[in-house]
């Protein structure tokens, strides 16, 4: 029977073959699903892998979707590398959006362009505040950050709901639950006309560079990871695991809040109950599929966005149900997790008894 045998050292081959295999498995299963539904599998794959990148406009839309995913994933990458399991990025995203929206609502026709900076900063602070709650509870009370951050997601949703149904509701909006649309001066600057792509993308790419330098080139980054992964060793070396906790949560909260600000002062342009779009959860997959490495996460963010947009297109062009996106995303992560085993273990046939 098949047996897993630990390798003496991590297999270099499988480190780069595993994600490829996982993607191939997902594509294979995808083809099977398309065929089972009676749709042309090549056209189906086209929807997911070709259509989202075939024109400048399509690429722009792809990056509009990928930017928040990448930003949040970068923050989560630092978190997970520090063994801090922040599952509540969605809540931090929402609170960033709320804070940013609050500042944006202060603008009127006379306000200057500086408000954009204020909005972005507010978003970062909002996300940090929310993640700070998680950090505090783990630091002072030793409360499990997974559950606390998750619970705070729901609380954040309720805060947003309360504000748009109540104090921040647009008085001229026929009592619909939404805020005023933000003045045009608050809009995050676009990169080019004809596309919704904003400078958020540049910020995200800068974030990639910063994260790479921090994690792999600075002593602080090294201390951060050790502090999280091996607290005893960290203490011996003089690294603070407490500091690692706070840094991890502040950074990921700030990143998620920034993403929230960019979304709400960008494509959405107002606060509505539909601001929470699940990016906080999808970003967890992005971080993982990207191997928690900043450059890897760029690719996985683009891949996940292709799944999102492809799913939309498959619906309108091929009549495939929208839920297929979730199926693919889940399958990709499952496959990756399974294939990753091959990095540390080898499959062997053993004859005789188990």
């Amino acid at each position: 029977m098949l047996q897993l045998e630990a390798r003496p050292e991590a297999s270099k081959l499988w480190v780069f073959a595993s994600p490829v295999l996982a993607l191939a498995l997902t594509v294979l299963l995808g083809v099977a699903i398309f065929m089972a539904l009676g749709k042309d599998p090549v056209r189906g794959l086209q929807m997911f892998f070709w259509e989202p990148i075939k024109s400048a406009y399509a690429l722009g839309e792809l990056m509009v979707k990928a930017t928040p995913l990448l930003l949040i994933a970068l923050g989560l990458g630092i978190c997970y590398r520090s063994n801090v399991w922040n599952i509540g990025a969605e809540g931090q995203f929402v609170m960033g959006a709320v804070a940013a929206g609050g500042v944006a609502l202060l603008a009127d026709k006379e306000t200057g362009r500086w408000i954009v900076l204020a909005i972005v900063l507010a978003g970062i602070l909002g996300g940090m505040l929310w993640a700070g709650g998680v950090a505090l509870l783990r630091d002072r009370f030793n409360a499990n950050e997974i559950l606390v951050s998750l619970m705070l997601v729901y609380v954040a949703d309720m805060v947003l709901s309360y504000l748009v149904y109540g104090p921040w509701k647009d008085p001229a909006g026929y009592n619909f639950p939404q805020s005023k649309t933000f003045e045009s001066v608050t809009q995050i600057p676009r990169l080019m006309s004809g596309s919704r792509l904003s400078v958020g993308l540049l910020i995200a790419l800068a974030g990639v560079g910063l994260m790479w330098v921090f994690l792999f080139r600075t002593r602080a980054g090294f201390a951060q990871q050790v502090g999280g992964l091996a607290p005893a060793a960290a203490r011996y070396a003089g690294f603070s695991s407490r500091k690692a906790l706070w840094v991890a949560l502040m950074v990921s909260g700030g990143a998620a809040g920034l993403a929230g600000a960019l979304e709400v002062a960008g494509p959405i342009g107002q606060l509505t109950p539909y601001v929470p779009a699940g990016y906080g959860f999808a970003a967890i997959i992005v971080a993982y599929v990207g191997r928690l490495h900043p450059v890897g996460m760029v690719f996985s963010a683009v891949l996940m966005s292709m799944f999102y947009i492809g799913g939309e297109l498959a619906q309108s062009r091929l009549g495939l149900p929208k839920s297929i996106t979730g199926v693919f995303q889940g399958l990709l992560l499952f496959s990756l997790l399974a294939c990753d085993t091959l990095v540390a273990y080898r499959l062997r046939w053993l004859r005789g008894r188990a």
Partner: protein
Amino acid sequence: MTDLTKRSIFKTVALSAVAAAAALTLFGCGKKEEAPKAEAPAAKVEPLKVAFAYVGPVGDGGWTFAHDNARKAVEKEFGDKIVTSYVENVKENADAERVFRDMAGQGNKLIFGTTFGYMEPMLKAAADLKDVKLEHATGYKTADNMRTYDSRTYEGAYMAGVIAGKMTKSNTLGVVASVPIPEVVRNINSFTLGAQSVNPKVKTKVVWVNEWFNPPKETEAATALINGGADVLMQNTDSPAVLQTAEKMGKRAFGWDSDMTAYGPKAHLGSAVINWAPYYIKAVGEALEGKWATSQSWWGVKEGAIDMVSVAADVPEDAKKKMEEVKAGLKDGSFSIWKGPILGQDGKEVLAKDAVADDKFLGGIMFYVKGVEGKIPGGK
């Protein structure tokens, strides 16, 4: 987590990129053209492409179901002069704008957005898609190439009230309400006014679920209303859960948006349905003939957009007769639901004797009439 050296990660990433690029080239070199849709037989004129964006699933049995039925009626009416398509479950956020642009990119020249939350995305898209005509349901912002349409659901609510007033034994009615906007408050009021016209003693209780479509929550809300004494329910939400709950607990209820008889045969008293077909046929016809112009339409029983159907057999004759009278009066314009004297919750007159409310008044209703209990969330 396994140990990964920096170089290995780089190699991972590089190889993935190569693999992805290879895959892309493979598929990109494949068929690039779009699969042809239902081909129109060799016609000299290109069929008009019409697209519909739905907020919920086509099978919701309520709001979206009604829209899709109308879409099918339009297909039947115009045959091969048009080609229709739809996208369901389009969320009311930034994604919607992308969907509208994609529809336009696919050659659709007439696009219907069937929920309030599409207003801003449609408006943004309208600015760039000058040769596309956009129709927005239940909204209030228009543009040269975007107009709004709505249905007088309050007429259906009033007719339901007439029946409810006669059928209630506890003199307490219940409404499972969605989002506290004028449309819904107006429906609650009209339901109450209709009931009071045949039974002045009725009171109406309201529970707000703050969503349009959430069957478990709607079930809980309906349960709470029934537990609070209501024995006839109405809803302004989009699923049959309220009717099902009434069936389970032995009370009566009305269907909403579509005929919901099948979901609660014993409980069902009638369904206040919206028929979007007459408006959709008019809109498509205008687009085909080049007569489309921006406007704000609000259609009711008169234009065939609202009706009360499948009235239960055990409703007493006098109630049925009264309901039919109201329907006929609405059809020929001789009857006005919102005609004074109408009192607010505090007993003060909101509409003087014989005064008839105009559309502006109706559009801004954010108060309860006398007989409705409770406060409007976020209202006065």
